[in-house]
């Protein structure tokens, strides 16, 4: 169970999560103040800070068993340099190479390798952490839940253990629906900025709910209310039809789109005042829709373009290819770019899909993973390594804090 103050504000801890509280805590994070602390206290504080981020779901005993004092590192070698020299130049001088090279320039001094930032590299091998790092879940806790609930496969086989330690070359896949849910904006919230979305989305509950409440309130079924209900059903069907024509026809002209959207807005407005809805206004809306549909079909006939794609994208190249008469058959990339982002109220996330708020501040993929977002799968290439000037373990703490934490787990305190 997640503790009560997981994203506390009083004693802030940075967590592996995309929560906005966590972003705030990260933004005001401060380095450990060591001046008034004994060495033991420094180590304790550093351990406490870092463990709240790295594998807080792992019990302390378990983690101390996972901890390794050996830290993997690599150094980049230049093939041209290796071909030019056989190493004698590094043994020249007093045994560590001459300070000045023959060409007069000073010896290249590599950046130090931040070994200590790799203290928690064994936790990055865990399946739940790797899923979070691959941006398939919004927190390690959520990733863990996906694993436990059976949405995750390793090398094509279901893996229900979040503590499974990935081996180099292992491929893990998460159900795309779960990924879209975890990383997508939540349903039922108003869109902050409507301009950047293709079709304007009403709030999921806003338009319909008050009407339904009124419905419940009415005790007796009178003729008037049944008439209202019939009109409302018609209106609902009309809105559905408008939606379909908006979804179906991808290559509509801007004016038609605009007309359809205005009509949809009007219909929605009428829906919210369905008690005062008359047959005349309903028939007028319907006739407007019919007129637009007529115009669309006319323009299609005159231009003689091949029929637009169906709502369900037919992606198979053998099916799509004959439709493009003059141009070359679409490449795989074209198909990917053309995959739609439709409005679908049955989904558990806001549609058309858009990233959840505050995701971009946390979005990075470390180099030890290779991710394919289209199929929501990733390969764990190798264990994370340190290299000059760079440590691959994503940690929000400075080198000094990580060093103190490393010293805590050396068990010589």
């Amino acid at each position, binding site marked *: 169970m997640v503790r009560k103050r997981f994203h506390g504000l009083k004693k802030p801890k940075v967590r592996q999560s995309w929560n906005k509280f966590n972003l705030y805590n990260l933004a005001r994070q401060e380095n450990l103040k060591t001046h008034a602390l004994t060495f033991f206290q420094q180590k304790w504080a550093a351990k406490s800070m870092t463990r709240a981020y790295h594998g807080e779901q792992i019990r302390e005993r378990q983690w101390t068993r996972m901890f390794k004092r*050996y830290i993997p590192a690599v150094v980049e070698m230049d093939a041209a340099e290796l071909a030019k020299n056989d190493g004698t130049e590094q043994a020249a001088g007093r045994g560590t190479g001459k300070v000045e090279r023959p060409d007069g320039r000073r010896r290249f001094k590599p950046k130090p390798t931040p070994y200590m930032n790799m203290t928690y590299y064994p936790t990055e091998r865990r399946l739940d952490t790797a899923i979070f790092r691959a941006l398939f879940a919004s927190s390690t806790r959520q990733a863990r839940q996906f694993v436990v609930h059976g949405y995750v496969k390793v090398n094509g086989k279901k893996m229900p253990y979040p503590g499974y330690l990935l081996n180099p070359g292992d491929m893990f896949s998460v159900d795309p629906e779960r990924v879209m849910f975890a990383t997508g904006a939540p349903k039922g919230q108003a869109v902050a900025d409507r301009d950047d979305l293709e079709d304007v989305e009403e709030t999921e509950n806003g338009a319909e709910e008050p009407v339904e409440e009124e419905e419940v309130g009415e005790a007796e079924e009178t003729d008037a209310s049944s008439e209202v209900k019939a009109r409302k059903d018609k209106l609902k069907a009309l809105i559905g039809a408008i939606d379909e024509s908006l979804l179906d026809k991808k290559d509509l002209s801007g004016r038609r789109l605009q007309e359809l959207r205005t009509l949809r807005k009007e219909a929605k407005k009428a829906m919210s005042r369905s008690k005062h809805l008359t047959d005349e206004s309903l028939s007028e809306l319907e006739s407007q829709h019919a007129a637009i549909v007529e115009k669309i079909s006319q323009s299609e006939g005159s231009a003689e373009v091949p029929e637009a794609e169906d709502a369900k994208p037919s992606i198979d190249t053998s099916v799509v290819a004959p439709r493009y008469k003059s141009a070359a058959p679409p490449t795989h990339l074209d198909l990917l770019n053309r995959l739609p982002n439709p409005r679908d109220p049955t989904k558990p996330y806001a549609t058309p899909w858009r990233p959840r708020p505050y995701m971009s*501040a946390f979005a990075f993929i470390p180099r030890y993973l290779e991710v394919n977002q289209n199929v929501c799968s990733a*390969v764990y290439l190798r264990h994370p390594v340190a*290299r000059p000037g760079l440590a691959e373990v994503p940690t929000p703490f400075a080198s000094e804090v990580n060093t103190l934490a490393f010293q805590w787990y050396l068990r010589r305190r």
Partner: protein
Amino acid sequence: MPPKLPPPSLLSPLPSLPLPRQCICQTRSFSHTRRQETQAREQLFSWLHGPGKVFEKPLPNSTNYLSAYSKTGQLLRATQARAKQADAEPEKPESDDLTPEEAEIKKRDAWLKKAAEDVDAEMGKGRVPKESMEDLRPFPLNWEFVSQPVLSEELRDAIYRRVAEEGGSVRAASVEFGVSMERVGAVVRLKAMERQWVQQHKPLAAPYSRAVLSMLPTTPYDPGHPVHHESINDLPVHPATTQQIFHPTAESRPFTRRDAARVFRQGLRPADQRIPHPELVEIEKAAQSGRLNRPQRDDLMRTVMERESLVQKLKEADEAAREQRRVKVISRPRHDFKVENVSVEAVGKTGRKRAGVGWRYGMPLEDRKRGQVRIPTRVD
């Protein structure tokens, strides 16, 4: 101390007596009165609506990390761009009715405003200045972690086509695209999966993919000018080489990498051979000694790569043959029986080694005991 008894007036069953309003608010959780916010929460929300507002939505086609912004929520590289643009503006003649200082200030303000507007207009069109290394740090306090670029969709597709469709070797593709061999293999594997999904009409997470790739730094694909994605010749630091050794040696004799490896540990190979692409060193040596021109060098590269892939194929064939010799397969209509030799000693001293075969008499299995870790260590 026991809780205070309420006054008798409240205890008496008098329905007409209204309860004090304050009391209702405290006990009824469904009250409509606004909850008193703590100072910490107030600060949080003022941050989220102030400087933190910029993180709510991604910057178009750019990363959007904490380090890219000032404490007040200004995009640092945009501010710098504005300042640069303001500096580049030519001087204008001053008007007479202002003191020189005022005119200077006014001019400066006007330029800054104009430059800021220009930058904002650019940003409105989705063009943000390119990130520097400082802007790519998601964690402001950790200077040793940066968000490194990932492969763009085009580059992944190019790698897949080179290896899976044109039959290029992983090694050659790794050198060509500047991508490590493990990554090339992974890209091909994942792309193959993706194409299979497309053929099976399985829904892809395309909107998610497009959004994520626009939030991350990516390595673009340009067929004419290949971009180096990552270092392909990484030498793993061997534990034996992390110690300092005092090794006296004759000055008259050259001390090479080979000697150094031997000093560190007997049998340790020199760095030239432990890197993933030793053939590149060979090519470079030939190029440096023979003064090859570009086509000759490409030819040499091709020859060496072909040789390497041939060696790899021979090695694999050899392994398969050895496996065939080790395991005797007896085919039957329903099952294939595989017979192989096993050693009794494989169970080890404790009789519990994983390599051991079969159930050992007198050695109870512990795999269902409490406290035994049942998480598999590998999935094939």
